[in-house]
């Protein structure tokens, strides 16, 4: 499907989504409260986005515009139609909460645990939200821009 067709499909389902076509793939910005429903629709309906190949988060604290902003970035592709879509969800940096999608895409379970570990994003209704790579008693979230570790981090 071309980007235009994908856009049409999305707008019928989610009128207040905003698009960005500057990158390699079509990007869509989804409000956080509509996310879960949108994800389920993506997975099963016309777009058939069954393959979530990248799930990550970006902390914008080091930029002037994003003092209180985290962005979840989901890269989807469809093994049926071979089209790719990037979905972004903006979160409040001080209290980041988002619904889990690990029930739609099984790979999200581990990826969400990783994002929780390194960014501190709370995934609601996640089956097993614990730290993944760091120890259970670790303090802070290392991939946030304001994380400081005076012992182990060497500034060049």
């Amino acid at each position, binding site marked *: 499907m071309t980007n235009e067709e994908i856009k049409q499909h999305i707008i019928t389902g989610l009128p207040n989504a905003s698009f960005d076509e500057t990158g390699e793939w079509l990007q869509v910005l989804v409000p956080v409260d509509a996310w879960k429903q949108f994800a389920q629709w993506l997975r099963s309906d016309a777009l058939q986005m069954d393959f979530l190949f990248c799930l990550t988060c970006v902390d914008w604290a080091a930029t002037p515009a994003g003092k209180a902003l985290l962005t979840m970035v989901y890269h989807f592709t469809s093994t049926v139609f071979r089209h790719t879509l990037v979905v972004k969800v903006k979160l409040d940096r001080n209290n980041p909460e988002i619904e889990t999608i690990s029930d739609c895409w099984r790979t999200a379970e*581990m990826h969400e645990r990783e994002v929780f570990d390194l960014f501190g994003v709370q995934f609601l209704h996640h089956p097993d939200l614990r730290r993944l790579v760091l120890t*259970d008693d670790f303090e802070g979230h290392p991939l946030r821009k304001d994380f400081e570790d005076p012992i182990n981090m060497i500034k060049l």
Partner: protein
Amino acid sequence: MYRETQIIESAKTTSPNGGPDAVDDGALVINVGPQHPATHGVLHLVITLQGETIQKIEPHLGYIHRSIEKMCESLSYRQFIYVTSRMDYLSAHINNHGCALCVEKGLQLEVPPRAQVIRVLMDELTRIASHELWWGAMAMDLGAFTPFFYAFRERETINDIMEETCGARLTMNYMVPGGVMYDIHPNFQKRVKDFIQLFTNKIDEYDDLVTGNIIFQNRTQGVGVLTAADAISYGCTGPVARGSGVACDIRKLYPYEVYNKVAFDEIIETAGDSYARYLVRIKELKQSVRIVEQLIDNIPEGDFQAKTKAVLKLPKGEFYSRVETARGEFGVYIVSEGGTTPYRIKFRSPGFSNLSALDHISRGCKIGDLMAIMGTLDLVIPDIDR
């Protein structure tokens, strides 16, 4: 730090999906790893057993987590490439390739044809070397020690070739944005051709020793079945997904460099069991040889590196590139704010997603099957932990 008793307690009380697969009292919880002969690195699996049957596997990661993504945020676009060799150290070339591609995408840099061919040649040689090691280690996991040495004999030849051209055996750092670091060594073509000749004879020996062996077939056939739908849902890529019948070879789907100009087949098996994954890799060896054979005499003349500025600056924006490593799809996601260093970088490593399917496919298997499954998932732990 993790305390063993705590982990055992947590494994007993928490059941991730609740309900039917809650662990009952007669279960035996054992820790496989982080120091265990079969995990090939510091992977820690907490396994709940009922007799010898696996009820649940819970991977505990992070023993070799170095926060490479955070490190890369303070390294320039030339510098960060070498770090990725330390992730999947068995396909270091291909990782570096993915990073170089991403930077080139951001700079809109045209790579000279000679460099493209050299890169693909190196990728395929790396893939052969990686699959060689996997083959030996997999046979060793299943109790046959001798194949390991045969595999290493051939792998050593590749390493020697790499050493001559790239200057290092494992973490080469040969890819730079815009091409390769230096031209191929004058002996390169001859040595690769010698290797190909030697190697094609040896593949039959591998079949005699392992593939056709009745014990090996019984150990792998029907073990750890991953369906196509599950493979997609778990984000599996590479030989793991292709063993389940999912076409996911990045070299075919989204060709980069000269992959659209060479003839090779994407190997797909449909059984989804360990044996299918094994066959995919063994057949991929032959396909890699085919690619190398096509390219080795056709390296175009010209520059091996495009002219680049001394300091690279990517424009503001997001760039994603993906390559097919020996283990699957390796993605590099760079968010640039226009500076000399990436603002945020994310490596989508194939091993991480492939590992997440481990619990699902090994439930109900015997503990001996776990070795076959882990062997065919071909996990490289630094790639998972990053």
